[in-house]
C-alpha cells in the first residue's frame, strides 16, 4: 500500500529514491507527457469554457487522478517510492530543507532565475525543459519574489472550516472549500499563491516541469482528505448533476475516459497519508 509522507520526515535514502525515480521517468520521456497533458488541459479549459483542471469544482479530483498516474509511473521504476507532500505552512522559507541539494535544489540565480544546484539544475544535464511556453531550457525559480510569504496554517484552517465543497457558479467566483483552497476566491492566495511564490515554470501552464509541483499538489490533495474527515456529513463533491459546462459528480473528466469525480472520492483505495 502506498503511503505518502511529509517530505520533511524523509530519510536521506528515501529522498534519493524519490529523486532517482523522477529522473528516470524524465529520462525515458514519460515525465514530459505529464507536463504536456497539463499544458493542454489548461489551454483547452480556457478556450472551451468548461473548466476541468482548474478554476472549477473538478480541480481537486482532476489533480488527484493526475498524481495517481504519476505515482504509478514512479513505482514502475521503484515500487518503494511515493509522492511526498510539502506542508508549506510549516516549511515556509527559502531555507527549508525541501530546497536543499539532496531533494529539489534551491532558488534561481538573479540573472535568469536558473536553478543552479540539486538534481534538477540544468548544468547536471538530466533536466532539460522540453515542454515549454517560453524559450527557457532550464528549470527556473525565484522563491518569494512575487509574493513574500506562503499561506499560513490559520488560512488553511479557515478553509478547512468551510462546510460546503463548492457552489454556483462553480468557477473562480464561487464560495466554498474548493475555490478557497485553490485560491481563486482571492487571487494570490492558497494553492495559487504557492505556485506564484515559487515563480519560474511553477507560475506557468507547464508548472509540472518543476518537481515541486507534485509535492505541492500532494499536500493540496491531503487537505481535501482532511476536509472530508472534518465534515463527514458534507457532500465530498459538488455539483451532483445536470450542471451545464461543469464536471458533475458522475461526469467523465478528460483526458481520461473512465474517471469521474465519484471514482476519486475514496483516496484510501490508492494511497494513504502519514
Amino acid at each position, binding site marked *: 500500500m502506498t503511503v505518502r509522507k511529509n517530505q520533511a520526515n524523509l530519510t536521506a535514502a528515501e529522498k534519493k529514491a524519490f529523486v532517482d525515480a523522477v529522473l528516470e521517468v524524465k529520462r525515458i520521456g514519460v515525465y514530459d507527457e505529464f507536463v504536456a497533458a497539463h*499544458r*493542454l488541459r*489548461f*489551454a*483547452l*479549459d*480556457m*478556450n*472551451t*469554457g*468548461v*473548466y476541468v483542471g482548474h*478554476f472549477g469544482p473538478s480541480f481537486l479530483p482532476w489533480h488527484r487522478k493526475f498524481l495517481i498516474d504519476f505515482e504509478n509511473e514512479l513505482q514502475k521504476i521503484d515500487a518503494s517510492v511515493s509522492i511526498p507532500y510539502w506542508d508549506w505552512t510549516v516549511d515556509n522559507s527559502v531555507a527549508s530543507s525541501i530546497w536543499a541539494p539532496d531533494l529539489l535544489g534551491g532558488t534561481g540565480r538573479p*540573472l*535568469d*532565475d536558473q536553478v543552479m544546484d540539486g538534481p534538477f539544475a540544468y548544468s547536471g544535464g538530466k533536466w532539460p525543459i522540453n515542454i*515549454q*511556453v*517560453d*524559450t*527557457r531550457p532550464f528549470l527556473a525559480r525565484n522563491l518569494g*519574489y*512575487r*509574493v*513574500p510569504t506562503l499561506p499560513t496554517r490559520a488560512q488553511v484552517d479557515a478553509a478547512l472550516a468551510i462546510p460546503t465543497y463548492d457552489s454556483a457558479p462553480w*468557477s*473562480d*467566483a464561487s464560495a466554498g472549500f474548493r475555490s478557497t483552497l485553490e*485560491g*481563486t476566491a*482571492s*487571487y*494570490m492566495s492558497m*494553492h*495559487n*499563491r504557492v*505556485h*506564484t511564490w515559487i*515563480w519560474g515554470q511553477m*507560475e*506557468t*501552464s507547464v*508548472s509540472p516541469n518543476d518537481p515541486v509541483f507534485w509535492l505541492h499538489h500532494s499536500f493540496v490533495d491531503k487537505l481535501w482528505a482532511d476536509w472530508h474527515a472534518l465534515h463527514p456529513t458534507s457532500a465530498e463533491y459538488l455539483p451532483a448533476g445536470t450542471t451545464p*459546462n461543469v464536471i458533475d459528480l458522475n461526469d467523465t473528466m478528460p483526458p481520461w475516459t473512465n474517471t469521474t469525480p465519484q471514482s476519486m472520492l475514496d483516496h484510501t483505495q490508492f494511497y494513504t497519508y502519514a
Partner: protein
Amino acid sequence: MSKITRRQAVGAVTGTAAGLALVGVASAWADSTPAEGGKNKAAPPGGNGGPVAFDEVFQGRRIQGEPLEGAAAHARGHAGHGSPFRVLIDGRELHVMHHGKSGWSSAINHYERFASPLETARTAVTTLKGASVVPFNPTV
C-alpha cells in the same frame, strides 16, 4: 500625452474586485522602472468597452495588443472564457485568457489575474527575463 503611472493606469480600468487581486502586482512593481515611451490609453472610467489596443516598448521588449474582430475572433471559438484579444511580445503571440470579473491571465502567469491585457503582457515580460514566448494554442 500626460504621464501616467502604471498604478494609476490600472486603477482607471479596474473595478474593486480586480483591484484587490492586484495587491501583489503593485508590490512587485515598486522597484521597477516606468514604461518607456508608452502610447497607451486607459479605458475611459465607467466605460463599457473592452480592453483597448496598445503598442509600447516595456523593459526593452515590444508588446502589442489588439482586440480580435469578426472572423478572427469567431475562429477561436470563444465560449465565454477565451479572449477575443491578441497579445504579442516581440511579435510572438502570448496566449491570454479572460475570466470574467476576475480578470486576465496568460500562459506565462497562469495562477494570477490581471486587470487588463496590457498588465498581463507587462508581467509576462518581467517574468521572462529576456526569454521569448513559445506560442501554444491547440484550438486555433
